[in-house]
């Protein structure tokens, strides 16, 4: 099992990092939206934040990084 784009956890990564950890509750709810494509989701994030999307890109995925 590997990290897959356009899934709940991928959405959570993007929304949580783009909206800020303090808005985790909102990010959680928005991650449950069945976004048609990652592009649609990212466009939505750009619209509401006015900034580029933050969060891990597939090329940056690092399976070894975990503190706990």
């Amino acid at each position, binding site marked *: *099992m*590997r*990290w897959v784009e356009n899934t709940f*956890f991928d959405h*959570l*990564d993007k929304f*949580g*990092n783009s909206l800020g*950890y*303090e*808005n*985790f*509750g909102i990010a*959680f709810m928005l991650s449950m939206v069945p976004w048609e494509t990652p592009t649609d989701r990212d466009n939505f994030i750009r619209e509401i934040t006015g900034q580029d999307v*933050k*969060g*891990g*890109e*597939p090329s*940056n*995925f*690092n*399976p070894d*990084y*975990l*503190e*706990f």
Partner: protein
Amino acid sequence: MVSGGFRPEAEQNNPFSVSGTGGNGQSGKFVAEKAAKAAQLRPSGFTQGMNTAISQQISEGGNVATTANAANPASKLPSGEGIAQLLGAIEPLDSEPQEFRPITDGIDGYSGRGSEVIPRSLNPNNRQIENVDLIKRYLPDLLNAARIPGAPDSYKRMINSLMREIM
């Protein structure tokens, strides 16, 4: 004197026996007076038929046949006791008028009331409480997702940060 029969010399058989005033004679004057009288009795400008109908309604008395409350005030308005009950049911929302409150109303440490008057849903601490609730409830799943091979660093950092928050 002979009575009856056709008399050629009679007035009605005289073709030159025409009133000197013509149409403005007594007969015409009478019609003009009647017209003026009718107009005087019809000040509202209604047509003659309408005026007659209204006059008939007025003379018969009673309420005008309509559903408008204004036309039948007595039949629709509540009684004095009903009004008193209605007014008694309306209570003031707040004894202090809102327009007299300072602009700092709702902020602690300034004039006006403190943050206790702000609805709970607008309290910024609620968001923190909501975050902690969500993290606690879904922590096992969030942790498992962080262990998925290929999970981005940003996700792991976020989970680490949120875990620190609830500890």
